[in-house]
């Protein structure tokens, strides 16, 4: 009897382990998922600036041409451990110069490396998964034209259990989706374009939306602000209840870096703004139109009482 119980227990464990293995398996795109598409470099450049690749992958504080050197190496200290930003310059040895277009699409759309392993979602593929595959192909072609930089970046240094890459498979089951975040009935073309830019390549929600304990975006609090991952203060609420600027004022702030009261966009948003300034006016207007169309929400993070008072 005891032996039979033990045998059943072992069988259950084996099945459970097998199921867990299956459930956490990376699911890369097949080669046939890539459409026939001749890359459009100009659009690739637009996607590059909409995606803000330089903000994390170039050297901090880089200006001008230096921003196009995506050598990585920045350390992101998080509750899960230290992430090291990889080299995504087209260097064959230390960058992604050896990647095929399919490899690149898998990284952005599925969070899967060329070796078939999960990438960690510090790389915002939870947003990039919403990108059009043609845009991804164009982006790859544009990034291939950037200067290769030889810089070998060490591996991430994460706490257990986050150090187990396979576990990211569970995270993806919970949070990875290609569906739009907000349902916008009767939205016009401009709002839809803005939705695509904000929810997809722009990955605005990654900072402007609060996260749960597992680091997934709380989409019920979409764009309602979040604690500042870099320390003090908070990332602002940019739903219509938090961001009361007019659409024109929002566009102006993207173009010039000045807020309507002539403060400057600072911190990480300063970097984002420098990228956004490269986008055509119509796209900036689309982003502003979308921000006015999302559900208005109160601040997810209340304004802190000033220290020392």
């Amino acid at each position, binding site marked *: 009897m005891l032996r039979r119980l033990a045998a059943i227990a072992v069988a259950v464990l084996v099945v459970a382990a097998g199921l867990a293995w299956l459930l956490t398996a990376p699911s890369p795109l097949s080669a046939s998922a890539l459409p026939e598409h001749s890359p459009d470099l100009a659009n690739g450049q637009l996607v590059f600036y909409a995606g803000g690749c330089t903000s994390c992958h170039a050297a901090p504080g880089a200006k001008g041409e230096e921003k196009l050197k995506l050598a990585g190496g920045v350390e992101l200290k998080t509750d899960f451990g230290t992430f090291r930003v990889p080299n995504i310059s087209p260097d064959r040895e230390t960058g992604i110069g050896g990647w095929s277009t399919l490899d690149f699409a898998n990284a952005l759309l599925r969070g899967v490396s060329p070796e078939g392993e999960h990438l960690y979602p510090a790389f915002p593929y939870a947003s990039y998964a919403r990108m059009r595959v043609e845009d991804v192909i164009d982006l790859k072609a544009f990034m291939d034209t950037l200067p290769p930089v030889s810089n070998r970046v060490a591996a991430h240094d994460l706490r257990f259990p986050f150090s187990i890459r396979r576990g990211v498979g569970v995270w993806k089951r919970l949070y990875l989706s290609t569906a739009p975040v907000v349902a916008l009935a009767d939205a016009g073309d401009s709002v839809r374009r803005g939705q695509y830019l904000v929810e997809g390549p722009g990955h605005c929600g990654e900072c402007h939306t609060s996260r749960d304990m597992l680091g997934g975006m709380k989409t019920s609090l979409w764009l309602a602000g979040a604690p*500042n991952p870099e320390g*003090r*203060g908070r990332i602002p609420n940019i739903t219509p209840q938090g961001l009361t600027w007019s659409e024109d004022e929002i566009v102006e702030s993207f173009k010039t870096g*000045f807020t309507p009261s*002539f403060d*400057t966009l600072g911190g*990480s948003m300063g970097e984002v703004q420098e990228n956004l300034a490269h986008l055509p006016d119509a796209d900036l207007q689309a982003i502003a139109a979308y921000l006015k169309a999302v559900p208005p929400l109160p601040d997810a993070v209340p304004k802190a009482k*000033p220290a020392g008072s």
Partner: protein
Amino acid sequence: MRRLIVGLAALSVVVAAAGASAVEDPLFTRKSLMDANGAAAGAGGAMLKGAVPFNADVAKSVFMTMHAVAYSYGDYFPAGSDKGDTKASPKIWEDAAGFAAALAKFQQDTDAAIAAKAQDLDTFKAAFGQVASNCKACHDAYKLPN
């Protein structure tokens, strides 16, 4: 246009009124000064965008306001005033020489902008751009973003 000029006149009153409590309340004073600076920039920006027509007197007023701010602002960061409801970065005190240099550059650029005596939009635009370049440079270094 008249509304703009009245607005700017009101601003100089704000700047003057700030002086009353300047010593007791450096946070209030420096915020009021920067608000005045921002409002002056707003008036300048409105002319650049064509929202209001160029006017040489308004242009002068814009730079005079910024000039007054540039030469007084730095006096309202006494030791200990990094506490409270402020976005002043600790770097203001840690790198006092750098902050002084940033202020000096702002001062010189307002000097030059006034000396340029802009009589048309193009001249104003050049001078304004030079002065406004100080905003982001100084904020990125010495103001907390969030």
